[in-house]
């Protein structure tokens, strides 16, 4: 299992992100490769179950950034080589960040950039601050989102208000935070288990990566947990009305769904079929549903569901993989980190070379930026297929 985990990494960014990642490690109950990045040594002191790297220590002396995204970014940049070393070899990263603060807003895009340079695929979970934290903090979080969305293969945005509502939090505030972290951690852990310990139906890293390369931008995340006779029906109902899904878009608008089912050895095939059929009934007929199961005796009597709802898929042929003339999947999932984007770049080079595309700029000095000739049409360089 360790070997199988070698290319997977859970990454927490900022105080909130580290706490959520730690909760997932706790819920997982075993060795889960995880790392956190923060500037505040005090905030991460209580996290003992994963490695937390203090970034920007020379500049900030182990203190927080005071909510300043510029400082968060500087901190990560100060130590980016150390961060790069810590993330070397990662192929699929799940990044958890709490937006609104300095490190979450400022350092997350930098971490995503490093992962991108390393050729890793990224599923990012970003929480938005509570409404009561004020408009300014909410706006700061919203501003960071476009950079994070573009740096991720798929992004799940979770407003804290919705996360607490989903956790059914009624407790005093002191107990509410751990409860919400626990709910989130349990869902995240289930995703991990699906990859590492597949049951009756497998959802391996390749399937998840393939799904991520098809998606574009944001997706939604929901969890459900039930027991009892009608547990299958209740779990699907709970999942579909999860506050995490937000009011819009509706489930009918989802283009693809990845569903994980965690249960004990008492899970019956009829129940699994029931879960699948009931969820499919809530989705559009064309929606693709991928199912994976994890069977674990510790969950006997229960059914836990975790689902990622993808609302926008790339058009057929529009992904970088589709540019390649060889087997797209093999190109996407090349064994060496960095291969995917390198392959896509090579492919783009070939495509562009085949066509005289500089048009009216053929006689003037080219505009080069980061190794790309910007005079060549963007849609060609980015491998966007056009609907003729």
């Amino acid at each position, binding site marked *: 299992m360790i070997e199988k985990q070698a290319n997977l990494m859970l990454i927490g960014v900022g105080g909130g992100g580290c706490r959520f990642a730690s909760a997932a490690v706790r819920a997982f109950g075993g060795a889960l490769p995880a790392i956190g990045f923060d500037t505040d040594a005090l905030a991460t002191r209580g996290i003992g179950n994963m490695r937390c790297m203090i970034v920007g220590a020379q500049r900030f002396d182990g203190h927080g950034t005071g909510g300043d995204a*510029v400082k968060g*970014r500087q901190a990560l940049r100060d130590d980016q080589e150390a961060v790069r070393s810590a993330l070397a070899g990662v192929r699929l990263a799940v990044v958890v960040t709490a937006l609104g603060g300095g490190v979450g807003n400022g350092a997350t895009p930098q971490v995503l950039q490093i992962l991108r340079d390393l050729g890793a695929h990224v599923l990012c979970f970003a929480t938005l601050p509570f409404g009561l934290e004020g408009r300014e903090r909410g706006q700061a979080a*919203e501003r960071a989102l476009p950079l994070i969305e573009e740096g991720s293969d798929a992004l799940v945005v979770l407003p804290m208000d919705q996360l607490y509502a989903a956790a059914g939090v009624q407790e005093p505030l002191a107990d509410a935070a751990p409860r919400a972290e626990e709910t989130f951690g349990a869902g995240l852990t289930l995703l991990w288990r699906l990859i590492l310990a597949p049951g009756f139906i497998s959802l391996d890293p390749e399937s998840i990566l393939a799904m991520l390369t098809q998606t574009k931008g944001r997706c939604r995340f929901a969890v459900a947990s039930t027991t009892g006779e009608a547990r299958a029906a209740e779990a699907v109902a709970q999942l579909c009305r999860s506050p995490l899904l937000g009011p819009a878009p509706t489930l009918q608008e989802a283009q693809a769904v990845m569903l994980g089912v965690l249960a004990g050895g008492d899970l019956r095939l009829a129940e699994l079929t029931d879960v699948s059929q009931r969820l499919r009934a809530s989705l559009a007929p064309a929606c693709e549903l991928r199912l994976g199961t994890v069977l674990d005796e510790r969950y006997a009597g229960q059914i836990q569901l975790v689902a990622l709802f993808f609302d926008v898929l790339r058009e057929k042929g529009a992904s970088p993989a589709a540019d390649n003339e060889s087997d797209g999947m093999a190109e996407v999932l090349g064994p060496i980190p960095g291969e995917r984007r390198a392959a896509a770049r090579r492919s783009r080079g070939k495509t562009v070379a085949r066509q005289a595309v500089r*048009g009216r*700029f053929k006689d003037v000095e080219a505009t080069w930026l980061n190794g790309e000739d*910007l005079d060549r049409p963007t*849609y060609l360089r*980015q491998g*966007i297929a056009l*609907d003729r």
Partner: protein
Amino acid sequence: MAIPPIAALEIGTTQTVALVGEIDEARRVTITGRGVYKTSGVRKGQVFDVDLAKIGVAKAVQQASEESDVDVGRLLLAVSGGHIEAKINRGSIPVRARDRIVSHEDVEEVTELAQALVLPPDRDIMHTVSQSFSLDDQAGILKPEGLSGAQLSLDMLVIHALRNRVDNLRKVVQSVEMDVDDVVFSGLCVALSVLTSEQKRNGVAIIDLGGGTTSFLAYADNVIASAGSFGVGGDHITNDLAVAFNLPTGRAEELKRREGHAQVSAATNLKRLIIPEELGMQERSISLKAFHTVINARQAETLRLVRTALHEAGILPRLNAGIIFTGGGAALPGLTDLGRAIFGLPCLVGEPCNVTGLADVETPAAYATAAGLVLYGFKTYQETGIMHPVKEFLQGIFRR
């Protein structure tokens, strides 16, 4: 003494704009003459044919001159292009006085030092903008004089350009027997004409979408904190469309103006654009969705270039007043929505609000650079009194 009229010229990639502005006793600047003519011989802000480019200059200046009734002999020139870069340069000196109190001379010395950025021999400094002083480990000081400390530092934003590109633009003006008083970065001009003092205080970025270039300038904490220019503009959208759909450039431009949109909407899924029979090609139709996809890809990429520059400069989180678009490219429908999605900030199309006399023009955003250049001229004249903007005579003499 009355301030004489000021003439300003922008040799854009698509059009050449000449404006003449006058200032009244209440210090209001009014555009009294304007001339616009199609540009030839310029690509991406760079002159490649002086003879072609001078036609546009001569025509535009003639129109502005006739409309304002001012004989234009000298003018200010706006410059943009991918060769323009900006860099923060830090100057640092020990405070000289024994009591360690910063003197006026210290401030002057550190300012000179911060301005003296060493550049490659083919580049010239266009503008220098003071950021803030630091005294020992205390940063963000605006007026250090009288304060105590051992080491005084100043961060200076230095905007510089390739000398030959600027000289080539000057040559175009000189070829129609006019003199250039000063050359000014177009981003600075746009900011002068469009931004309010409140926007500058709150932090704002202005993005000028020209035909061949995209220039930007950002204010943070009331100071110009970042600036730059890319050799990518509206012509690239046109070229992308021409390549994608095998269209003549003129047709691609016309369709872009008529049917262009910065975002791809599901509503366009089944709609098609009719391309009339032309240059031996039969009448045909193309997908409107594909048409918008090409535009969206280019426009989004261009905005992301600016976003990356602002992000690298650490300014993005400080732009509380959002993003303002100007230039001919600002007329593209859906641009502000695309901008909001890319920057995560409020976006709007700006107009030259700090001058009057442009109320009746169809796309005021396209005049923002030249209008700002006129304002720059008056500002410089008022501050130094040494500008000779149009002619070195009293107004009564050079009036026709």
